[in-house]
């Protein structure tokens, strides 16, 4: 059966409300799941959620606009974030940044025209001892060098990484979990 985008959103929100409930504290979990599935929380989705939780849509917007990982505009299928942690060598970080822009043909803060890649600079992501560090969706790459950036992007193109804006990538126990790789 074919659903319009709006019908799909309504179905998704209804399903999530059934799981998380209608209390205000359910809002974050609902937004997280919508963001992960649709790669953004559209204005329409905010209205549907607000209606279901019986709060004003602007309340939902105020939450979406507050948090870094929630967004009202669609991000690329692969969000590539470079950590701007001061502990990392500036020269190495700059080289990786330059190479990322060259390989993708976009600047930091932009999304590629085909909607495949977004490039972002982010604050410290807790990998200060192993820089430079890149995060692609939920996966973390440590000790990245400029000459390996091309291979990393090929990985994405070949779809060996989980797509979507999914921020959750499960891994096994310990620091050597499958959600983390070293380039």
């Amino acid at each position, binding site marked *: 059966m074919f659903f319009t985008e709006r019908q799909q959103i309504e179905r998704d929100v209804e399903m999530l409300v059934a799981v998380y409930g209608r209390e205000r504290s359910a809002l974050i979990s609902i937004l*997280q799941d919508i963001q992960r599935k649709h790669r953004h929380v559209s204005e329409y989705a905010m209205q549907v959620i607000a209606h279901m939780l019986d709060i004003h849509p602007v309340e939902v917007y105020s939450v979406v606009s507050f948090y870094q990982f929630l967004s009202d505009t669609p991000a690329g299928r692969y969000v590539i974030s470079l950590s701007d942690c001061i*502990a990392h060598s500036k020269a190495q970080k700059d080289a990786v940044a330059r190479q990322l822009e060259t390989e993708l043909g976009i600047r930091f803060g932009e999304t590629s025209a085909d909607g495949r890649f977004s490039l972002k600079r982010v604050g410290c992501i807790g990998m200060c001892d192993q820089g430079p560090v890149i995060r692609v969706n939920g996966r973390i790459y440590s000790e990245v060098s400029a000459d390996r950036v091309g291979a990393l992007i090929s990985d994405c193109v070949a779809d060996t990484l989980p797509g979507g804006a999914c*921020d959750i990538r499960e*891994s096994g*126990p310990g*620091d050597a*979990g499958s959600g983390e790789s070293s380039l």
Partner: protein
Amino acid sequence: MKSSVVSKLTFSTIPVDAGLHAATGMSLEDIVETVRESGLRGRGGGAFSVGRKWEVARGVRSDRKYVICNAAEGEPGSFKDRAILSGYAPLVFEGMTIAALAVGATRGIIYLRAEYAYMLGHLESVLAARRKAGLLGKQVAGNPRFNFDIRIQIGEGAYVCGQETALIEFLEGHRGEPRNRPPYPAVSGYRGAPTVVHNVETWAWVTCVMAKGAKWFHDLGTPKSPGMKLFSVSGDCSRPGVYEFQLGLSVAELLRVVGGEDAQGVQVGGASGRMVPRSQFGRKIAYEDLPYGGAVIILGENRDMLEVAHNYLKFFTSESCGQCTPCREGTRKLLDGVERLRNGRCSSAYLDQLISLGESIQAASKCGLGQSSPQAFLSIVAHYRGKLMGRKLVDDAR
């Protein structure tokens, strides 16, 4: 990703469930008293007495109480909590269970920063194993009146959610804006119920204290800063990673161990901490001298301290929650000032005004994050002023 743990940690020597086992053999008052006697203080940076928090939460009558593990670890330069969660998660959950028993909580929540979501599978499997072993769920550890379980809530990216009341706002479905205190969360926290919030590392130490006794912990460190502490060491040194030290060691000693003797300065406490210049490397890392959050960033000879100030202020301008003016507008003005310095366009008089603005932000901001936001800038200006002025003129075509 390689393991970050470099030194041997006490956590690796604690027998499984020795802490919870010891606690179940005590009266509830004695559990709280043991934690209080150990002198353990919050290891996230707030440094509030752990025993005192429990005492307060225990004293409030309520049919619902919560314990929360703060795994926001948003402080730039800090990664010890990541190492603890990936290597010693059972100690953290055990500590939460002990507190739940002592204060009468039935539910625990772990706030896990989104960047650490890759650990979710691992953490869920540890929780599942504990449920299976009867250490979580109904009648925990064979105690017919003790029901307690823990769930994990992934964050959505906000530094300010490391502040305990902002974290609670997030969990309740709101913007992560810190609340006015009092009431403190131990009295009225998550959904208005008494809530004990501690950092990941604090929870693990709780378990160690229960397993090895209050005296063992209290005899280590200094009289005013008992015990050990994990440090995230990064930057220009030969052996970065997670280290455990007794409190009271000097910056110079730390630098020797990690191979960073050539530093021109050390940022102690992450972005919200302060820059310690070489002339002060004899100072001790302890509550009574150099307070810390556990993040130590070493800046070598070739670093431009202005870039460090710029990096931290840029961070604070984007992470300010925006509800109070000194932090929201003040940090922007300081960042603009650093850019003027960088472009060779800052007079001495204007720099003095920036210093005075920084002091106002410290005095007038609502929460600890706002209050500490100008600290790195102020300490860098105080110790490296000569290196910041007189830069080559740059036309700022912004």
